[in-house]
């Protein structure tokens, strides 16, 4: 498999450590190298957009510029793609890329700002979400090493918002299915539900708990026939895991944790003990 530049983002180094741990373990097992971008900083999350969109753009641009700086470890080869597991980071980097590509004056302005750190951005790299990479760069039908197939397990694939919208790249945002093939390859069944692309409330869960919990409750209640929810966003995972007391409780795993289990990767290499839904037990086969 190819190598990727890796942008983990703040939550994967803190409250979503297990996502970072399991992405690394899964990608390594699939034969991919991850080169973490040197000196990366926060992408601005949802805060920048609500306070100062100029800062948001600059934060995205700085990270793109750093990525471009180390994008060609081998000058003979094509530049690497940027792999981003967090949906909010993915969207921010992609938006910055999009805006800077479209608007030359903006790019010049930002490059002036970045020149203080001897950086500049040209916007030629591809920013890709983990789900994009897993669904398009891996051939799931080709006998991957699933030594522990999760037979009898029913999974609710939960995509959330920002990996699907507004940029439609690798899946249909109205009715996403990119996780189906992987879940089935792992031996499990996919729950037929229509909450996969719904919103978890994002930061409303912190600042307006009633609004956030209402959305989380709807998702959890609709997943009551599943053994677990599988997700690809740290914000979604945290919201779904945290507000389980007022709804039907369901364990919430990150996609690479789930796939890793089926591939027989050890639980601690998947960070499973760090999930808040303690002792997630999914035994297959």
């Amino acid at each position, binding site marked *: 498999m190819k190598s990727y530049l890796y942008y983990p983002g*703040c*939550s994967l*180094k*803190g*409250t*979503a*450590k297990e996502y970072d741990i399991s992405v690394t373990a899964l990608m390594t097992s699939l034969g991919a190298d991850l080169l973490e971008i040197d000196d990366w*900083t*926060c992408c*601005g*999350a*949802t*805060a*920048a*957009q*609500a*306070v*100062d*969109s*100029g*800062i948001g753009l*600059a*934060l995205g641009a*700085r990270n793109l510029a750093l990525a471009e700086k180390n994008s060609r470890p081998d000058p003979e080869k094509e530049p690497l793609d940027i792999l981003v597991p967090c949906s909010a980071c993915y969207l921010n980097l992609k938006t910055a890329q999009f805006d800077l590509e479209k608007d030359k004056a903006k790019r010049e*302005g930002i490059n*002036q*700002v*970045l020149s*203080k*750190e001897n950086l500049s951005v040209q916007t030629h790299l591809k920013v890709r979400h983990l789900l994009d990479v897993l669904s398009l760069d891996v051939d799931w039908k080709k006998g991957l090493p699933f030594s522990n197939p999760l037979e009898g397990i029913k999974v609710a694939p939960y995509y959330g*918002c*920002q990996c699907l*919208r*507004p940029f*439609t790249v690798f899946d249909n*945002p*109205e009715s996403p299915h990119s996780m189906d093939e992987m879940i089935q390859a792992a031996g499990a069944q996919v729950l037929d539900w229509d909450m996969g692309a*719904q*919103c978890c*409330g*994002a*930061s*409303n869960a*912190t*600042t*307006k*708990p*009633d*609004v*956030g919990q*209402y*959305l989380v409750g709807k998702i959890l209640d609709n997943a009551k026939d599943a053994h677990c929810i599988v997700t690809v966003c740290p914000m979604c995972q945290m919201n779904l895991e*945290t507000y389980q007391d007022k709804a039907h409780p369901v364990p919430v795993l990150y996609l690479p944790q789930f796939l890793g289990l089926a591939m027989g990767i050890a639980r601690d290499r998947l960070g499973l*003990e*760090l999930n*808040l839904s303690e002792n997630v037990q999914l035994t297959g086969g």
Partner: protein
Amino acid sequence: MPVTDCPEEIQASVAKVKEMVRSCIQCGTCSASCPNAEFMDITPRQMWRMVLTDRLDLLFASRSFTMCSSCYWCTLRCPRGLELTRAMGELKQIGARLKLGNSKKSDLFYRLFLDNVRQYGRVREVELMGRYFLGMRNPMAPLSYAPLGISLLKKGKIKPELPGRGPGKLADLFEAVQHQEGI
């Protein structure tokens, strides 16, 4: 509050939003798609109408725009291809700058979040939440988050660190951007 009574920079931002939603045909797809609409007293469609007819008094008397969770359903589905989530972001910025007080908690949270990023480059969650509780001036506030905080600490996912001093890692970047924006 007519737009002309607002400070100039706010007028410029309002003009930006107006331009963003200029071709709205009032079809209501955005409101029908919004997962937070039932918590809003005025809907997204109504907000765009108020922007276009200069009824900022009505728009900012409501906190509807602060309910937006940036899910991008409206942006995806608008038949005119308008960037509505971004427009909501602009309204949040205007609301925060006008210090309307109708979105105190999120304004405070987002502002502290960015301060945190300016200082360290990356988010330090414990310090951010600590400052958020202090800023809310509600001694009971931390209690509702305590169980979550304790489990995160136990799992080593967050760690208390001494607050940093000095200009901060991204101070130059922030300053340069704000200089360019003329803030």
